[in-house]
């Protein structure tokens, strides 16, 4: 990797402590520009905190969070290149969606009004109704439209689909991919609807308990685990020595999710043992990885507790 290029996003040992919990626990991360990133993880994993700290809207307790090599906090140069609409974004009390877009046009230098208007139609948003009278889905649509039409160099979408129906979500994904193809930029999309977004992500960052537990290209992640099903005893010998993410069994049958790649020889061996191999979807992998991480953390905590 060329370390000369300034990454779009960089975190160096960032920790954010709230009164009773660590929202970010010594997080280091480096993301190159002009790609679509998925920031995945459960609620409370630290996704929003990470984005708040990066954009200078929130404050870390220690460490450094940089955008294009600089802190965003009170830095108009950097701020003018980013857009971060929160999941629970607040708007001035008497604003209509149209007025919100009008002010976005004032601040985002790449703002595309025609694109925004097209999105308003796509989402069937009533542009003149006051925002506080919009439904939850329409409120999300306002944020999505600002995020897309701002064409900021780095755009953060924080769970942008809340209350959006399946059709509206698909419109969002389609427009995002289309517009990204024409105007490449850095998109960071936090989501827990992993299967839905899996196809548009180029790179995945998975968080749990304030830590990053996976940071890899989506393509390489998809092949990093597999599920093997069949006779429990055969599976036992087949997966011996491998990292098991998940295990299910019913009578003499078992299904085990295993981390790692398989060689041709191993595939043949599995076939000989009468075992079925299946790829693991990104969502399943995320669920397994997260649960495995939680278990490990719990065990560690138990050990620490025992030592006390």
């Amino acid at each position, binding site marked *: 990797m060329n370390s000369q290029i300034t990454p779009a996003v960089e975190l160096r040992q960032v920790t954010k402590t709230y009164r009773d919990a660590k929202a970010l626990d010594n997080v280091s991360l480096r993301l190159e520009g002009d790609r679509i990133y998925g920031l995945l993880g459960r609620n409370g994993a630290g996704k929003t905190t990470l984005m708040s700290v990066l954009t200078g*809207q929130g*404050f870390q307790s220690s460490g450094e969070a940089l955008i294009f090599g600089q802190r965003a906090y009170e830095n108009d140069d950097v701020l003018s290149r980013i857009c971060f609409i*929160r999941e629970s974004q*607040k708007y*001035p*009390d008497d604003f209509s969606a149209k*007025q919100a877009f009008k*002010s976005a046009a*004032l601040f985002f230098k790449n703002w595309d009004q025609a694109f925004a208007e097209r999105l308003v139609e796509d989402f069937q948003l009533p542009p003149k109704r006051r925002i506080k009278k919009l439904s939850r889905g329409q409120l999300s649509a306002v944020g999505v439209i600002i995020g897309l039409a701002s064409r900021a160099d780095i755009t953060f979408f924080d769970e942008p689909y809340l209350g959006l129906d399946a059709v509206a979500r698909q419109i969002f994904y389609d427009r995002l991919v289309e517009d990204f193809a024409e105007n490449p930029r850095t998109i960071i999309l936090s989501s827990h609807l992993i299967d839905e977004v899996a196809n548009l992500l180029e790179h995945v960052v998975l968080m749990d308990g304030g830590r990053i537990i996976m940071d890899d290209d989506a393509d390489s992640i998809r092949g990093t685990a597999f599920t093997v099903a069949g006779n429990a005893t055969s599976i036992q010998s087949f997966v011996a020595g491998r990292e098991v993410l998940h295990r299910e069994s019913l009578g003499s049958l078992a299904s085990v999710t295993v981390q790692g790649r398989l060689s041709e020889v191993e595939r043949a061996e599995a076939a000989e043992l009468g075992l079925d191999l299946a790829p693991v979807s990104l969502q399943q992998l995320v669920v397994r990885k997260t649960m495995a991480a939680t278990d490990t953390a719990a065990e560690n905590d138990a050990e620490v507790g025992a030592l006390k």
Partner: protein
Amino acid sequence: MNSAVNVARMQLINKWTFLGIPAVIMVAAFLITLAIWAMIPATGVTVYSGAVQAVMWYFLALGVQSLTLTFPFSQAMSVSRRTFYIGTVGLFAVVALAISVLYYLLGLVEVATNGWGLNGQLYALDWLAGSNPVVQILFYFITMVALFMIGFWFATIYRRWQATGMLISWIAIAVVLIGLAGLTTWQGWWPAVGQWFVAQTPLTVSGWAALFCLVLGGGSYLTLRRAVP
């Protein structure tokens, strides 16, 4: 600087908030005052009204609203806290100055029309009207800015520390005021304090208020610097 102007333009996208409602309040307060005066039997005695204050209290509320709703939105618009502060307070100062000049001009009309034909005093209060025009305008201006900044600062404190912040602030203010009152009583300073108040002129009141505004402005800014939307 340019983006601070954009913050002001953003605040004005909905003309109603910063311009429409204050205008309605001022016109309504004026008309209601006239109506009341007209109902009082004419006895040749001058009648007074404090209706000029009405719009000033609205600005206290506006200060709160700018911070609670417009600040989180400005963060989403990638505006720094500093720029938001300069743009918002700057816009408000311009509006307050315009209203102050308007009050002064209305005061001239009031004097010329013998108190709107009703011998009333609304804009050209005796205490104020004798002063230099600049002092009159300054007095209105500073008073409005002070009220706006009070609202703005309290809203910022609430934003950062929620109910705990409010509670501590109010208790601290109460303790300081009671302490001062106690000290004055204990030292037997009340007569001197009374004389001091009587001796104040519009100019000196404006001066003290300006000092107060500086404290409020500085405090608000420092509180806002670490506020999270």
